[in-house]
């Protein structure tokens, strides 16, 4: 997370309204990707979209209260279904493309990807 003087990437790219726009772009990519779409099929698309927004908010350093322990617990059932590095890389790839499409400058994209990378061990329950 950022310290008191530097703004988080979340704030720099426009806060909540920017997340709302990003979530549709990101969710579309994830659902269209046969390698990972099965993790995200949900009868309730609004609920899934809300979770994607939580994900985007977290990796951009926005207001989020998830701990590493939450990330472990939250993805444990997916790891049982076979969630692995290949899936993680696919999600990270879509995250990168989404931010680029929305015109986020490269240094900020790199920061976001670094935050995502730091969650890898917890998400994959290692």
């Amino acid at each position: 997370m950022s310290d008191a003087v530097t703004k988080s990437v979340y704030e720099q790219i426009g806060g909540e309204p920017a997340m709302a726009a990003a979530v549709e772009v990101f969710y579309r990519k994830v659902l269209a990707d046969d390698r990972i779409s099965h993790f995200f099929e949900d009868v309730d698309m609004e609920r899934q979209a809300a979770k994607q927004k939580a994900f985007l908010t977290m990796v951009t350093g926005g207001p989020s209260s998830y701990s590493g322990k939450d990330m472990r617990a939250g993805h444990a059932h997916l790891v049982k279904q076979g969630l692995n590095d290949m899936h993680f890389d696919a999600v990270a790839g879509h995250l990168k493309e989404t931010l680029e499409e929305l015109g986020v400058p490269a240094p900020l994209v790199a920061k976001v990807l670094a935050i995502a990378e730091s969650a890898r061990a917890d998400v994959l329950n290692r």
Partner: protein
Amino acid sequence: MAKVKHESSWYPLEPGESVLEGLLRQGVSVPNSCRAGACQSCLMKAVGGAVPEAARVGLKDTLVAQGYFLACTCRLPEGTELEVAGAEGLRVPARISALSPLSRDVLKVSLVTDAPLDYRAGQYVSLVREDGLARSYSLASLPREGVLELHVRLITGGAMSGWLASEARPGARVFLQGPAGSCFYVPGRPEQPLLLAGTGTGLAPLYGIVRDALEAGHSGPIWLFHGARTPAGLYLREELRGLAERHPQLHYRPCVLEGGTRDIAEGPLDVLIRAECPKPVGWRAWLCGDPQLVLSLRKKLFLSGLSLKDLHADSFLPSVPQAGASPTDTAGAR
């Protein structure tokens, strides 16, 4: 343990049990149908205690403000208590004014209420029989028409549709609860292309929405796809063809899986939609009818660029048989 108070008795809930399940299990009669938070037949009013947020999802603010919630999605935290009452206060008396077939297995049910029902074309109501049997039906009528019109598909062994088809007579007294749902036309962007798609009686709300949009002066293209397995499952074809002739912006496309003709396209609904509306970015869409189809079309349209906020869907979820009822206990007391 959590518990619920209803008409001066307390009913304990088992862990994980919803208020609806707990009350039904202990012999309290509560109208219900889909048990998935969609049909709103099991609306109840909290008169004491806190209602979990999840039990209010999809309810109008005015209902939430009065303490209403859905009993089927209401699961109470351990150790808490809730005092509840039925939603009788929301029911308006109505009378069946006419019953006439629209096709071999679709019945038009006309209803009149004593006081006009305040609704938007395309919303749905719960039809409640005098004995409490409740099912949701979409409104195919326009508010200005006064008479309410439902399109009811006859289900073999169906409690409500069977009653309407063979026992109910014009003049019969029923109750209506509602309206509910967000499937309706929103004026303000007359040029926006609109896509309406439904299967079977999923046409009912679309028939209201399309006429509402046209009367509001919608000038952008309006695509109406009505799907059925065979041509016998289509209905209101002449009316819709006439409407499209009078309004060149309306494109009416009846389609079937088998038995297509010169006027009726043949093939899966999503394929036909994609062929005619390949890039619906910035459009508004309404999808109604069979839950599986609504779900898959919703996903496909989202992937082809429609925004979730412009995608309105009503899944016609069937009723769930009461837990514990024996398989031989069919249409009975649900």
